[in-house]
């Protein structure tokens, strides 16, 4: 009996009228946990009942606490017939199980019904008393913290990164159970909601157990997904990165200058990472070889044999640290069979990390994107244990693995193995920015996994890395200075930054601003053709000509200009088919699609004059009669990589003069576009001195022909050269009409309107001075293809227009926020039905300060920098931080490892954010003045935004009664909750993580027209989902959700029957944030004692 759950039902409001006669409702509430149910009294005839119930107490196992949600059902009492349900609230009590998260859940929750949506609100109080349980054979993992955030959460530091954790659970989908043929859809949808809530809880508990086994205390980058496999069942699976996190607190003086010093999100909203130069000096220079993209065709055919052959014996220095401690305590734990086998050894087997940005020094080299796809036929999941005592007690599919060799688990295992071997081929021992996804259509399922092959520093994966911290950090500001100076390629303007680093004796073999670009593989043993040059930044090591990754750009990376969103879009028709035939057809199409997507990406990258992609996400969705591919990434110009060559068009029939003319016209267009783009994105790399090997000037003789996939046999496919490495100019050969179309579509990508930028990573490379404007949004579009006789080309055009128009709509909607950037712009495509394409996008628009962008801050920073240098040691510390780190978005606080400075650090660094406002630089005489300036600026800003609409109206003449006193709208009782897909909120500091939000809703209607058609229906539903997320966050005491994502949006309609149904799954991290300005006002940040309710803005 390790826990007591207590719930109190306080009141309701805005309840619907349930009794038409009286226009009132006789409401009461059922509170259920596990198999125990309590009821409140009926509160008669009111739409705003005040139950003020006693505390309902549930004595439960902590295992149940983790699995089960608290279910609250509001009903209307009816003397003569069955009580009508008004709606339900599911409360995940997991946040209450961790001592560092929320302590009480208290607030107004929307009462939700799958048919009617939100029907009023209910005020609930929930608490948990946990008893200490020393049972080590326990099945629960209470206290393990979960984060959706794919970086080390701010206000924690990673003592150790253990590695990959994964788990999946399987159950029958209630929708497909026989009982549902006689049950109403509403009942089965409610059953589904409850089941998935339960399965998520169980999944989380099991992952938590694995984390405990590994010696960790948290999961970062937790990604949970549902596979609705229809008749064959419901799979809930999750992956994440196990870590040991330590809460940063001001009091612990001995704490080293953690990578996650609380200062970092303040001064540098964009990134949480810091350069760590020493990681490089510790090892020999890395092997040289280049590749950016590992092509891995679906496993159903021609698995690349080279993968395992090229298993190079590299990475000697990193010593395979992943999963470091896992082996230590695997033993005594009695867990499921599978969990045992999955312990230490297997952890090492998959050195995968779901993180997309990293503690300083963690990421050493990046090899390139690795991906794998596999097409599977779903069959019914054999599930013999249904229907005993606990009707929904879940079945772990894994326990039936013995019966069925082809399990979901085995499928993923295969894919992961493939990913791993690809990474090896790239000379990397780890995969970062790792994610998995599926696309299901009827009985066919495409499993996909992708990540970025990387070489990581072992110290984060070994015990004792804490000690390792102080050394590198001491020096870290130097390289940061370097990168600051080089940010815009202005070496010559800021020679002193180099001087200073030299003066301090820092001879870095690979500075963090370019080190990750250096190839990890052996130059002489590249598994693919590649074009290598010496790094344009440090000139010491080899870099590839382009770099594709799935991670966020490292904060310390040196970039030129700004980045931009790039998308490759592709549709492929396929014949309708069943079973094996269908799966084979899909398998055969996949490599062509990947190839074309890749080609498009490469073309578009060159067209923008850039050389690297971050946050690459390739999605291929399967429908009955087509496949849709969408690749999104954020393109940047990495200073370390060579200038990309242009795109050259070559005609096939040179005899024809008009044709030649046509070609040269197109060539001109392309050249113009490249020039325009370079200007637009401020891509002005420094003139390259021609000592570098390889010339950036196009050499026509090196052209290679682009394969048109439909003309190639699959044999050729496996030989595809995807590196595009051997040539500088990228040649498009026009050999058919397709190519012409391609070029047209290349050129029809309209750039974002003036004042807008967009990226699919956390923040936009090249923008540093975010202001407080923030607008998270979700947009969904479904298109119907009305003509059945579409060609691939026609389809491509439609799909392309669809995405372009959606983007245009977003820009238009958000135009009032200019200058602003759409960040984390992530598209999800689906083919829900025969002729439908669905695109869903969730992103955040953030404003930034245009005037103080670019040159200004750099000048300011630099002046401060110079000033700092002449000042004495004590003073030096902070200004140095300001100037060196902030411009390069480097939040690392280089405290010298003495306890004394720690507290100072904690206070000072938040203010350091004022680097944003560095246009005032010349007036800064010390960092204190700088702080003052900052505070003023912020205050000014906030006054503007909060000014209320108080109208000056003439007082009534006749009577002197006061008319102004009673206006109440200013006193809204609803706390504002911000939502963002990013892991931070600019200008604020996250002071507490309250727990993970993972919610699943189904909404259905049988009166589609009356609810405004499909758009009206979905619009209302998404608004309701937002509202429920906000309410749960507010009840936890939070004022924001970070790392928010909508992972599932499955929409089905039947207009003929006037019906529709939608299923949405969202997740994120509930947090309390404080504005920097508030923090400045408060001498000591209320790190530990702050109770959430007070901190709402």
């Amino acid at each position, binding site marked *: 009996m390790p826990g007591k759950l207590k719930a109190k039902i306080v009141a309701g409001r805005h309840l619907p009228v349930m009794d038409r006669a009286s226009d009132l409702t006789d409401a009461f509430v059922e509170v259920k946990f596990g198999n125990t149910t309590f009821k409140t009294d009926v509160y008669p005839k009111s739409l705003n009942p005040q139950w003020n119930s006693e505390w309902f107490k549930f004595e439960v196992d902590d295992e149940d606490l983790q699995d089960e949600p608290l279910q609250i059902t509001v009903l209307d009492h009816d003397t003569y017939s069955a009580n009508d349900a008004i709606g339900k609230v599911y409360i995940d009590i997991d946040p209450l199980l961790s001592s560092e998260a929320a302590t009480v859940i208290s607030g107004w929750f929307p009462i939700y019904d799958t048919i009617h949506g939100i029907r009023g609100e209910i005020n609930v109080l929930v608490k948990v008393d946990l008893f200490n349980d020393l049972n080590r054979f326990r099945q629960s993992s209470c206290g393990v913290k979960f984060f959706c955030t794919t970086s080390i959460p701010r206000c924690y530091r990673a003592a150790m990164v253990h590695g990959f954790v994964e788990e999946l659970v399987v159950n029958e989908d209630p929708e497909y159970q026989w009982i549902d043929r006689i049950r109403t859809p509403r009942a089965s949808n409610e059953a589904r909601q409850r089941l998935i809530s339960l399965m998520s809880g169980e999944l989380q508990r099991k992952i938590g157990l694995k984390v405990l086994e590994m010696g960790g205390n948290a999961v970062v980058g937790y990604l949970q997904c549902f596979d609705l496999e229809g008749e064959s069942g419901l799979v809930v699976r999750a992956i994440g990165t196990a870590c040991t996190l330590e809460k940063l607190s001001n009091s612990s003086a001995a704490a080293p200058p953690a990578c996650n010093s609380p200062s970092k999100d303040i001064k540098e909203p964009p990134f949480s990472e810091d350069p760590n130069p020493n990681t490089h000096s510790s090892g020999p220079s890395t092997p040289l070889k280049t590749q950016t993209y590992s092509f891995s065709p679906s496993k159903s055919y021609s698995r690349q044999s080279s993968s395992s052959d090229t298993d190079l014996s590299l990475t000697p220095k990193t010593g395979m640290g992943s999963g470091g401690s896992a082996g230590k305590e695997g033993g005594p734990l009695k867990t499921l069979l599978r969990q045992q086998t999955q312990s230490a050894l297997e952890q090492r087997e998959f050195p995968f990390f779901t993180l997309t940005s990293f503690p300083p020094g963690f990421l050493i080299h990046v090899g390139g994107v690795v991906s794998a796809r596999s097409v599977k036929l779903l069959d019914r999941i054999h599930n013999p244990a249904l229907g005993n005592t606990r009707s929904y007690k879940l079945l772990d599919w894994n326990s039936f693995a013995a019966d069925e060799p082809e399990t979901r688990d085995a499928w993923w295992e295969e894919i992961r193995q493939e990913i791993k071997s690809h990474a090896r081929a790239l000379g990397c021992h780890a995969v970062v920015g790792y994610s998995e996804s599926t696309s299901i259509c009827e009985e066919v399922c495409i499993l996909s996994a992708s990540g970025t092959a990387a070489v990581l520093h072992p110290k984060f994966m070994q015990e004792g890395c804490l000690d390792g911290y102080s050394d590198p950090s001491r020096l870290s500001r130097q390289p940061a200075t370097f990168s600051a100076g080089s940010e815009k390629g202005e070496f010559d303007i800021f020679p002193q930054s180099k001087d200073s680093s030299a003066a301090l004796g820092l001879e870095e073999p690979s500075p963090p601003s370019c080190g990750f670009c250096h190839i990890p593989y052996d130059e002489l043993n590249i598994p693919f053709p590649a074009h290598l040059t010496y790094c344009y930044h440090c000139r010491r090591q080899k870099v590839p000509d382009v770099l594709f990754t799935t991670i966020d750009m490292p904060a310390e990376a040196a970039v030129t200009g700004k980045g931009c969103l790039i998308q490759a879009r592709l549709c492929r028709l396929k014949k309708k088919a069943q079973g094996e035939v269908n799966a084979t057809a899909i398998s055969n199409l996949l490599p062509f699609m990947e190839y074309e997507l890749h080609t498009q990406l490469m073309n578009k990258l060159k067209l923008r004059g850039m050389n690297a992609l971050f946050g690459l996400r390739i999605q291929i969705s399967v429908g009955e009669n087509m496949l849709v591919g969408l690749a999104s990434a954020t393109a940047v110009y990495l200073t370390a990589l060579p200038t990309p060559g242009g795109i050259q068009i070559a005609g096939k029939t040179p005899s024809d003069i008009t044709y030649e003319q046509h070609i040269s016209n197109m060539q001109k267009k392309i050249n113009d576009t490249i020039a325009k783009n370079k200007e637009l994105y401020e891509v002005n790399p420094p003139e390259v001195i021609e000592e570098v090997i390889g010339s950036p000037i196009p050499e026509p003789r090196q052209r290679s022909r682009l394969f048109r996939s439909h003309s190639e046999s699959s044999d050729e496919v496996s030989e595809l050269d995807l590196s595009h490495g051997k040539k500088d100019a990228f040649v498009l050969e026009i050999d058919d009409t397709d190519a012409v179309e391609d070029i047209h579509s290349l050129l029809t990508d309209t750039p974002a309107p003036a004042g807008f930028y967009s990226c699919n990573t956390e923040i936009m490379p090249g923008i540093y001075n975010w202001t407080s404007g923030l607008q998270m949004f979700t947009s969904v579009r479904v298109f*119907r293809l009305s003509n059945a006789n579409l060609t691939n080309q026609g389809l491509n055009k439609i799909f392309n227009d669809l995405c372009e128009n959606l983007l245009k709509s977003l820009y238009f*909607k958000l135009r009032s926020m200019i200058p602003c950037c759409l960040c984390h712009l992530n598209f999800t495509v689906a083919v829900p039905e025969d002729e439908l394409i669905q695109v869903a996008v969730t992103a955040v628009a953030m404003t930034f300060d245009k005037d103080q962008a670019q040159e200004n801050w750099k000048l300011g920073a630099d002046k401060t920098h110079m000033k700092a240098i002449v000042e004495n040691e004590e003073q030096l510390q902070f200004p140095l931080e300001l100037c060196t780190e902030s411009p390069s978005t480097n939040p690392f606080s280089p405290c010298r490892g003495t306890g004394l400075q720690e507290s100072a650090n904690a206070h000072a660094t938040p203010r350091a954010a004022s680097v944003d406002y560095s246009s005032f630089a010349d007036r800064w005489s010390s960092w204190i003045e700088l702080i003052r300036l900052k505070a003023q600026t912020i205050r000014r800003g906030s006054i503007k935004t909060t000014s209320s609409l108080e109208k000056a109206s003439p*007082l009534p003449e006749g009577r002197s009664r006061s008319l102004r006193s009673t206006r109440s709208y200013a006193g809204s009782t609803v706390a504002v909750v911000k939502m963002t897909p990013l892991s931070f909120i600019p200008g604020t500091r996250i002071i507490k993580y309250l727990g993970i939000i993972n919610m699943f809703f189904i909404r259905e209607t049988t009166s589609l027209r009356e609810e405004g058609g499909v758009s009206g229906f979905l619009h209302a539903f998404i608004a309701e989902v937002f509202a429920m997320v906000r309410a749960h966050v507010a009840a936890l005491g939070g004022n924001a959700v970070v790392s928010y994502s909508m992972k599932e949006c499955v929409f089905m309609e039947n207009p003929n029957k006037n019906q529709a149904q939608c299923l949405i799954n969202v997740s994120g991290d509930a947090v309390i944030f404080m504005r920097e300005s508030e923090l400045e006002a408060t001498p000591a940040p209320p790190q530990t004692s702050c109770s959430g309710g007070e901190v709402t803005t």
Partner: protein
Amino acid sequence: MGKMSVELDVFVGNTTIMDEEVYQFWLDGYTVADAVRVRMEGGVLQECEASAEVLHSDTMDQFRTFQMCERLLHCPSKLANQLLFQIPPHRQAMLIERYYAFDDAFVREVLGKKLSKGTKKDLDDVSAKTGITLKSCRRQFDNFKRVFKVVEELKGSLVENIQQHFLLSDKLARDYAAIVFFANNRFETGKRKLQYLSFQDFAFCAVQLINNWTVGAVDNMVEDMDVDLDKEFLQDLKDLKVLITDKDMLDQHKSLVCTALRGKTKVFNEMEANFKNLSRGLVNIAAKLMNAKDVRDFFIDLVEKFIEPCRSDRWTAGDIKLFLTHYTNSVHILDTFKHQVVWDRYMGVVKSCILKMYHD
């Protein structure tokens, strides 16, 4: 290519995005197509390199949002407490204020009419006459009716009650008070002779009546205090008749006024000639006010019995003011007249109403 159609298109922001201009189109009852057309003409397309398609999508989206908000706007206090839309307080105030705003042309058509189903049925005529869309007319009418129903039975100040329940600005709350007051007392405002008066003229008069002639003017804690006229006072008004029935008093009153005005106005002769007619007019209006039917005709009577004669004699507003001041004050000197308090309460309102209603 025309091969695709948008089946579904939604945009939902965590903070609800609303464009005031589009909101106005929605309030004005535009169709989406009309709103798109007007927006395009307004040049919004250039703002952000948008296409007609984009504009259509945006307009649809916002119209839908407003429609979903409408339920909440019917009870504005809910808007602040609801969880569905996250709308900053000043935007909430804007939404409410604009929702309850009305067109002067519309309100003139229904001012003083019973806010009943019958009147609502006639709204298409009003729409045709005023050029305001039927949808907008209905919204405005329903707003009047909703406010009326809520405050009808409440104690306390009408304006304050309206403000409290509907969170309106002072100005708008006072306008609604006038509308409610007129609807409750069914003042005739639609006659041709009254057409020249604006809603604001009437609203001003309403404030005068509410502040001086209602129950609330004497006792501010009774029900309907601001909506119903003080019956006792109306009864007492009968006593004023002596001013015209008593010949001596009438003559004395006239000579006092004439003495005071001699040489001070260009229309002295006309005034002198018309004094008895005018005085009879004003006093008769007072004496009849105890009948509900005559209350309704209060404004038309003022126009017919006083304003029109003066206008035909080309009195200026200054002349009117001068006359009414002395006409009112001279009565204080009549020692046989015992109803000074009632007289002042009556004339105070009548004077300011006439001054407002007398357009040069």
